């Protein structure tokens, strides 16, 4: 049993299965739908899910239909005989809309973003065929935090997945990050009196420094050292890379 559902479990003694878009997917007890799917080489889009952390269920990109009802595949336990639909036109439309909303909520200028090519949001946008923002851009004002000597925080790109929050508290035991505010004003904050990263004990070697799926937490003074075409999602679309983003290191 894997009560925390934090690790993808692959057991040779698998006997139970559910169906995903008509394919039989084996699973081990304790696995979620997304864990079993990824282990079987079937990609389900996701942003806040990370195999090393507890399921969060907040980004909703991994929404599937389980026996006809929408559910987050990262929080749904795999069960025998489930009928899971993922790659249907209807679900893909909704995922595309979610990505479009994320893109207009922040300031995502891919051309000059160091994360371009390694960014899960960008990878998903390409994969889902996002050809335009569709919604009016909100253009929020979010100043960058460059107070830390080794790490830059560019809040413009934050999608509120809380992976840095979770990594900093659960792995680093520092609690550097948190979310504040409600609804559309919700935003990432830094736990120091000044609110600045430079006044925390954050270190560039922290787990929190490497989990950001987008371009918020970046190593300073490193930009474009890896040419276009050689970044993680350049040669192969994100949907074909079924292992999640930390399984294969970014090309930095």
């Amino acid at each position, binding site marked *: 049993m894997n009560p925390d559902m934090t690790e993808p479990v692959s057991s040779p003694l698998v006997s139970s299965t559910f169906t995903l878009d008509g394919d039989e997917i084996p699973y081990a007890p304790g696995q979620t739908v997304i864990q079993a799917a990824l282990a079987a080489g079937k990609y389900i889009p996701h942003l806040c899910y990370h195999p090393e952390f507890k399921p969060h269920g907040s980004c909703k990109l991994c929404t599937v239909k389980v026996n006809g009802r929408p559910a987050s595949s990262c929080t749904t336990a795999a069960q025998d005989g489930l009928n899971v639909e993922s790659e249907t036109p209807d679900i893909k439309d909704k995922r595309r809309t979610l990505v479009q909303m994320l893109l207009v909520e922040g300031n995502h200028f891919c*051309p000059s973003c160091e994360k371009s090519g390694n960014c899960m949001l960008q990878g998903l946008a390409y994969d889902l065929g996002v050809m335009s923002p569709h919604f009016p851009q909100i253009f929020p004002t979010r100043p*960058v935090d*460059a107070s830390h000597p080794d790490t830059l925080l560019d809040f413009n790109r934050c999608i509120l997945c809380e992976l840095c929050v979770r990594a900093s508290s659960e792995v680093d035991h520092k609690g550097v990050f948190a979310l504040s505010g409600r609804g559309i004003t919700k935003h990432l904050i830094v736990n120091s009196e000044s609110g600045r990263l430079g006044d925390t004990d954050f270190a560039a070697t922290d787990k929190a420094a490497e989990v950001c799926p987008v371009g918020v937490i970046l190593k300073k003074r490193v930009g*474009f050292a890896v040419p*276009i075409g050689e970044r993680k999602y350049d040669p192969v679309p994100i949907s074909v890379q079924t292992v999640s983003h930390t399984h294969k290191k970014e090309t930095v």
Partner: protein
Amino acid sequence: MTYELETAIHPEKLRRVAIDPVSRVEGHGKVTILLDDKNQVHQVRLHIVEFRGFERFIQGRPYWEVPVMVQRLCGICPVSHHLAASKALDVMLGIKHLTPTAEKNRKLMHYGQMLQSHALHFFHLSSPDLLFGFDSEVAKRNIVGVAAAHPDIAKKGVLLRKYGQEVIRHTAGKRIHGTGAIPGGVNKSLSSAERATLLKDAYQMVSWAHDAVQIIKQLYTATPELYDVFGTFRSNYMSIVAPDGGLDFYHGALRARDADGKVIFDQIDYQGYNDLIEEEVRPWSYMKFPFLKQLGRENGWYKVGPLARVQNCDHIPTPLAEAERKEFVAYGKGQPIHATLAYHWARMIEMLFSAEMIKELLHDDDIEGSDLMTTGTRQPGVEAEGVGVIEAPRGTLFHHYRVGEDDLVTMANLIVSTTNNNQAMNTAVREVAKKYLNGKEITEGLLNHIEVAIRAYDPCLSCATHALGQMPLEIAIVDAEGTVIDEATRDHRGLTRPQ
């Protein structure tokens, strides 16, 4: 002469003719001409009507984003901005010398850029005027018309440009808006396969570029009564030159000459450009008017670009282009050539030089090296700064940045090539208007004469209007008698009126 025909005394009584937009140039600009009842020209202005904001929105961004971000100023010669920014940030980081591989790959990228941009300009944008005549049938006066009438010329033009784009793609990762140069070096060198691919066609490109010089030379020398006088005016000119005085587009020091060819200054380190050049703002254009401080705003304006560079240098370091340069200089009979249409001739000599340089660089084994990056010691102090200057296709390009201790950009100043030519272009259109339009019934063909003069400078109006917040907008409301009723200035402090 600087302000002649710039502002009519009683504009309200005059008829206004506008060329909007000016076609076959990069970006958006317009020309307005004020004429009286007898079609006498009283005012001619080249207005730049785009408004952008790169200098402002770079502020507060991390410096390593800058070379990739600022190149978005332009889709025609982004490489120039990419490299000028990288060079400025090399200086900021205290890096004196790049590795040979980094330097040569950057140069290769830049010469690819010069080749493709010059080919684009000559064949696609200007050859229709030159081959068919300025007032030829408008429906055919375009690259499609050229392809129909002169398929061989059009084909060479398209393929020369394509080759330049391929050089850029292999060095920068993409044909447009790549990431090859980074502060301290480059992120890739040419692979053996890429080098072989480019080498395969390098000789053909040199040969076609050589043909292109012959085309423009024949056109020019066959009708000197047109080419020598069309939009011709005397001015200073400026460019960077190599330490030995040779032509170099990638690096060098500043040299300026006066209208007689006499050196005004030479081998000036461009880090001190601010002591040499000042920019004047005029209320009717978004493009500033730079001038050499030591000569003042009336006499200090200058030309940049091919015509300036080919005459400013002492020699061109490749054989075919050097032979062409000598012939060009000889045509001036000891005097600098100031003809606006001579830009085309000089530009093709530069295209030949670029093709020859590409061929040379491709034969250099350093181009495949693996030593890509250099580090330096950042300038001490709270703010570090650097200036990067490069000869872009359209002329001298200045990038100047200051970076705070936290690695964020605090100040950016760009003087782009087209801005340097602002006064020269305005003077050229006024000369043409005086000579060809005065007293005549305005026709499309006559108005195209104005555009031909602008096109010779290959202006990039998108690049030229990169600034925001530094150019106050001045508004004056004038009644029919010419009396100012109200005036106001809008700048970073908001709307203000004179006390």
